[in-house]
């Protein structure tokens, strides 16, 4: 059995705490997950875009920021914790395929606001995860990303459309992952892979600028996954009132 500097199934919150206590460095953490991706992803297909150099650079920058920080309290909450982005959102410098063979492979100019918030929260962006085309069906088996497989049983689907996000966390290729849900695309893969899938209340996270999931009734709420520990512990990274959001959050009253 290969020895890693961390348990790759450590929940993101505990990993963040271990990094903050300097028990493990962001570089060691990133290398651990990249190594596991090398080993397991050829079979499972969670990732559709890898950018290992960018990942290592971001992890090194996070390590450098720890040296410079006067105290751990100055660091953002998920400092140095890796998190992959579902391939429906732009990450500056990486292509966005939306799971489609018809998409442009050109790198995105700028990151989606949700991606920027994850980065601001300290996450190291760990590549992009597979989705069915446009996130339209609850499995990923198409020609562009190929077949994503369930780590519990590679003969079964991990569900979708956030297929790669579920696979990555369930297989210990990431401690937590971004995902998106307009019609169960977080909930189905969470169910298929035995994870907690958090779909925040609509409009608690920015859907703009986005594609169809910005449409009012089917709005997507970018969210995250983690191993079965309290999902709300990741909320501060994602759930706050966005600037520039077209629909301000309202109270929980049914009389909206």
């Amino acid at each position, binding site marked *: 059995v290969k020895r890693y500097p961390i348990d790759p199934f450590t929940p993101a919150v505990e990993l963040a705490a271990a990094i903050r206590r300097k028990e493990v460095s962001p570089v060691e953490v990133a290398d651990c997950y990249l190594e596991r991706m090398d080993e397991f992803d050829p079979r499972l297909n969670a990732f559709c875009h890898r950018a290992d150099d960018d990942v290592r650079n971001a992890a090194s920058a996070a390590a450098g920021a720890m040296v410079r920080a006067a105290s751990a309290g100055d660091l953002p909450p998920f400092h140095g914790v890796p998190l992959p982005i579902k391939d429906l959102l732009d990450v500056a410098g990486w292509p966005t395929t939306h799971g489609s*063979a018809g998409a*442009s*492979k050109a790198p995105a100019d700028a990151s989606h606001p949700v991606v920027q918030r994850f980065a601001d929260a300290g996450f190291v962006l760990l590549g992009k995860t597979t989705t069915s*085309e*446009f996130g339209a069906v609850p499995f990923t088996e198409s020609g562009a990303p190929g077949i994503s497989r369930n780590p519990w049983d590679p003969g079964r689907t991990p*569900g979708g459309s956030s297929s790669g996000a579920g696979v990555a966390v369930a297989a210990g290729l990431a401690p937590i992952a971004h995902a998106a849900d307009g*019609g169960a695309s977080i909930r189905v893969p969470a169910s*298929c892979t035995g994870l907690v899938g958090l779909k925040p209340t609509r409009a608690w996270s920015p859907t703009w600028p*986005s594609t169809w999931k910005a449409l009012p009734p*089917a709005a997507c709420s970018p969210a995250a996954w983690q191993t079965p520990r309290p999902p709300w512990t990741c909320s501060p990274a994602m759930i706050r009132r966005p600037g520039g959001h077209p629909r301000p959050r309202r109270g929980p009253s049914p009389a909206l």
Partner: protein
Amino acid sequence: MTMAPPAGLRIGVLAESPVNGISVDPACAAAVHTTVRTLESAGHHVVDTPLRLPPAGELIAAFTTIWNVGGAGVALADPDRVEPHNRALREAARAIDSWAYTEGVRTTQQLSRRIIEAFLTSFDLLVTPTMACLPPHPSEPGEQAPTKIP
């Protein structure tokens, strides 16, 4: 940041699919019952009232109007390489005028508020199976159709 666990929550249960013709796998139904028993043993109580839902056909028809525009806004280098099911959605979307689309948005908002109102009136928590089936098997390359997923 620790909070006392909530006590005495009203638990609603929706163990069957509101959509006709979709049965719930016994394993998924069993997971619901296990969860409900766990909640009961933690001091919460099951409310014996079903969640009031609008006719599924009405909701699906309105929602589909919106769902069909799924690929809109995605810049494509080669639209001919879009998968057949998404091409069909795009064609269906283009056959709907803005009046009908707006009706779909309005109806979906109205129906969803009715569901939320019924939920908030009766329950604090609703337990449902996430999936109605076990994770299906992927189709292998060369097969005609993906594994059927309800």
